[in-house]
């Protein structure tokens, strides 16, 4: 089954460890990881994406694509409560992008199929690993990430009705291999 997952960790270091462990699960064949990113939400609600340590500092501010993915993971209640990722995305939009709008567009598109609710929230000061994965069962990821102190949120890719909203920059932020992340 193809899923989008978000694993929330208390800090960057744990998220980096979670990222490597996820790719280790891939190497063992327990899950197939297609793409990953590490994000961090600061105390003001701004979300940054970690770049590869060899990159030159581009790709630090969250883009439309990842904003839309966050919207898809947060679900309708995320929109309703406003205090969760919707608010975070809105802050990102205020910082110079259209992330909030895109995230809300994704969520609005999901309103009629409100059967899902991941409960995904990225609190201020915390970090998360975002990933697109194929997994036959959820136990390997859940067990491994929980043992690291992570909380796993998951949404089936087939439930996201319009992933074209993720746009071309989604690929720019989501690395298709393991890497050493850092925040510029």
């Amino acid at each position: 089954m193809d899923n989008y997952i978000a694993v929330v960790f208390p800090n960057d270091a744990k998220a980096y460890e979670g990222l490597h462990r996820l790719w280790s699960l891939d190497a063992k064949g327990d899950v197939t990881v297609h793409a990953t990113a590490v994000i961090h939400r600061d105390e003001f609600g701004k979300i940054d994406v970690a770049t590869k340590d060899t990159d030159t500092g581009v790709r630090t501010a969250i883009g439309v694509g990842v904003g839309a993915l966050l919207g898809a993971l947060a679900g309708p209640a995320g929109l309703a409560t406003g205090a969760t990722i919707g608010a975070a995305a809105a802050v990102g939009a205020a910082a110079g992008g259209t992330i909030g709008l895109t995230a809300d567009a994704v969520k609005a598109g999901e309103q009629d199929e409100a059967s899902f609710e991941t409960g995904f929230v990225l609190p201020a000061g915390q970090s998360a690993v975002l990933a697109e994965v194929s997994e036959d069962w959820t136990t390997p990821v859940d067990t491994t990430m929980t043992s690291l102190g992570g909380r796993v949120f998951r949404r089936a890719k087939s439930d996201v009705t319009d992933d074209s909203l993720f746009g071309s920059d989604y690929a720019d932020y989501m690395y298709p291999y393991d890497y050493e992340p850092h925040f510029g």
Partner: protein
Amino acid sequence: MSQVNVKDPLDQARENAQAFYQKIEAATATNHAQIRTSLEKVSTDAEKVAINLKALGEKQNADAKLHLQLAQAAFEDTAKRAKEALAATDADLKKKNQAVIERARQAVTNLSRAVAARRAGTTKPSKN
């Protein structure tokens, strides 16, 4: 006696493709001359990868085979675009190089999906 782990050829091909992609992605931060040198290598290497994938496809299940064919086509297109980019002016070079990188990225994604399809076809617990 030490244990030797033999990697599945498809897993190995994906790992090689990921490494290939990382290399060409890194070339974006360099100057025009370096980008052109990189594109020449990308063109020949992407062709080789595509040929290797063709051979792998024969042993896979239908779903994996489909994704492998898409990956192969994307690598062939990557090679073609890299050749075309070599003829571009300096003003257009970075844009053309970016298009090459994007196509290679699609190839890697398709290869990753082929691996997932192959793994799904093997005996694993299924209680999602």
